[in-house]
């Protein structure tokens, strides 16, 4: 019963929360640049506008694939917040990412294709760390199930500090933030127009934004999972740490310029190896 309620709550409040987070992002970004910035509800105005624009269909396959992206992101988040299997959650996340990448592939445009290639590269970069997160939780909490992990008596971050750092690192890629915003960017004028979303417009772009909001809420949920334990205050701590992680990623976005994919791959895999794998090895020896 509570699982259905959790899924429904996620479906209803996911985009609201995600939109507010996106608004916070733009406000914070503006303030860091010494600007006043748009209103907090700006992302909602943007998406509402996108749904009222003329519908220009590049091809129907693209629209179908974007639909798949939205559905599987909602599935990922729903499964996570209803206490499902963490491995299945991460596989669903990957499938959703593949749908989105394929949607950009399907358009006959060089910019969109380049974006898709880079997206594939990004997925290859962050995927090992995502899997290590799942394995790390299994080793520290003894289960892949989110509903079991939250019953840990001490926060899992105490066992998994390295994995936590690694996850924050790939969060920069997942939230499409500089220095790793190679495939598409929130900021104007990159070298290949808008990359992945170049050929997506109107209501379909609105659905992409909506999916990103769902995705961001889910990702911050994973950050929170590191903190949460049986005591009531850990929920507050988890929310605080998630928002802090989001702000850190925005700060990183402001400070660093975009890098080439080679450097992204090297840096991320190095962090995965040092922080992630080392953490697992130490855990294996002492547990």
């Amino acid at each position, binding site marked *: 019963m509570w699982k259905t309620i959790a899924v429904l709550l996620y479906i209803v409040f996911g985009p609201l929360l995600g939109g507010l987070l996106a608004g916070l992002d*733009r406000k914070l970004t*503006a303030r860091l*640049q*010494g*600007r*006043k*910035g*748009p*209103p907090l509800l*700006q992302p909602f*105005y*943007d998406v*509402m*506008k996108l749904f*009222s*624009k*003329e*519908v*220009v269909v590049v091809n129907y396959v693209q629209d179908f694939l974007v639909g798949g992206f939205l559905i599987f992101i909602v599935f990922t988040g729903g499964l996570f917040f209803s206490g499902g299997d963490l491995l299945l959650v991460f596989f669903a996340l990957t499938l959703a990412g593949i749908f989105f990448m394929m949607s950009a592939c399907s358009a006959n445009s060089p910019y969109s294709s380049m974006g898709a290639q880079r997206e594939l590269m990004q997925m290859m970069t962050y995927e090992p760390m995502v899997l290590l997160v799942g394995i790390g939780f299994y080793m520290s909490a003894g289960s892949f199930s989110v509903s079991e992990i939250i019953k840990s008596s001490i926060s899992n971050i105490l066992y998994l500090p390295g994995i936590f750092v690694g996850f924050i690192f790939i969060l920069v890629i997942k939230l499409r933030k500089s220095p790793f915003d190679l495939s598409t960017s929130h900021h*104007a*004028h990159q070298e290949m*127009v*808008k990359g992945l*979303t*170049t*050929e*997506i*417009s*109107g209501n379909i*772009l609105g659905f992409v934004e909506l999916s990103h909001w769902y995705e961001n809420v889910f990702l911050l949920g994973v950050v929170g999972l590191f903190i949460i334990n049986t005591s009531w205050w850990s929920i507050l701590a988890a929310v605080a740490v998630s928002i802090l992680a989001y702000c850190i990623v925005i700060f990183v976005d402001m400070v660093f310029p975009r890098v080439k994919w080679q450097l992204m791959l090297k840096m991320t895999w190095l962090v995965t190896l040092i922080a992630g794998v080392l953490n697992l090895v130490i855990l294996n020896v002492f547990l």
Partner: protein
Amino acid sequence: MKSVSKSPWLLHYDGSSCNGCDIEVLACLTPIYDAERFGVINTGNPKHADIFLITGGINNQNEPVVRQIYSQMPNPKVVVAVGICACDGGIFKECYNINGGVDTVLPVDIYVPGCAARPEAIIDGIVKAVALLQNKRDAMKKEAQK
């Protein structure tokens, strides 16, 4: 439904401008003027844009480009000509290689004169374009209901 007027996304195209107006357009996004507080985003992608902002006059080379960009933008859309060259050709009007202002190719909605156009004038033009965008949106909605 006021969403269109709260989220105008710009596409800035430099026709044959001397870059004077282009720099002033970018100045609108800097901390002093901060056009983003009205929800303005400089997208650089015609498929995402609502307002087509053109600087510089039209010649035979950029005419097909301007036409194509305009045709790629989904409705409702507004064209803003920024600077005197985009308005009617400016000091290059009589030149053999200039066809004239943007209105020789596209239906221009808002003219922002000046050489170079001041950021205040450009923002004023954008605000007027936003109001027009809302009108066009309402007209589109009425058309759809018929």
